[in-house]
């Protein structure tokens, strides 16, 4: 399956045309995370957003004495997306589960450049990103009941 075909299965990119998916695919690189490998480290800076293409990752917060798992994210989910928005420190750590994970990586500068060139991509992806964050918040609320 080509990268643009895979991107149609990512909610972040829903409502984009095939031509726009091709443009996004052009700025995606691929990475393989080994089982247990840390992909994002809490309280560090980062300029990348990741999309889980295969496998799964677990998101956890490291406290003073222990780590608390927040959620498991599988195929099609986005991690590190806040780095594209607020440029702040990573709010949590993320590591590959025992399955490992195949990831697409989008660099913030490349993404911003693409959005400046094509405002429609920027609008759609930012709207979908807001939906993704809302979905994660709703999941979190239900998980804490």
């Amino acid at each position: 399956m080509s990268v643009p075909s895979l991107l149609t299965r990512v909610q972040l990119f829903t409502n984009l045309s095939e031509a726009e998916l091709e443009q996004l695919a052009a700025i995606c690189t691929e990475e393989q995370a080994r089982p247990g490998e840390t992909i994002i480290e809490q309280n560090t800076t980062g300029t990348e957003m990741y999309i889980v293409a295969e496998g799964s990752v677990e998101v956890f917060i490291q406290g003073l004495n222990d780590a608390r798992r927040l959620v498991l994210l599988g195929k099609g989910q986005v991690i590190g997306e806040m780095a594209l928005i607020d440029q702040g420190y990573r709010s949590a750590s993320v590591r590959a589960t025992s399955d490992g994970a195949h990831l697409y990586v989008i660099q913030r500068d490349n993404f911003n450049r693409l959005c400046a060139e094509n405002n429609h991509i920027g609008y759609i992806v930012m709207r979908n990103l807001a939906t993704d964050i809302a979905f994660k918040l709703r999941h979190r609320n239900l998980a804490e009941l």
Partner: protein
Amino acid sequence: MSDEVFYKVSYVVQGGKHPGAIINVETRPEVGDEISFDGRVFEILEVMELMPPIGDFGFLHATCRYLRDVN
């Protein structure tokens, strides 16, 4: 937009000991289905729409319970 429909599903595990998972699936989950993640198999007890669909995506929430470890 493709003709396919995908579902972004929030799986919450009864009991609160497991943090749950968010996974995209290509078939709508149904009550009684088994789903595996994190090396465990869970049974789906309830499915509800979490948010209205957008584009090719439906947004669902499923409550499930632990059944067994995968092998």
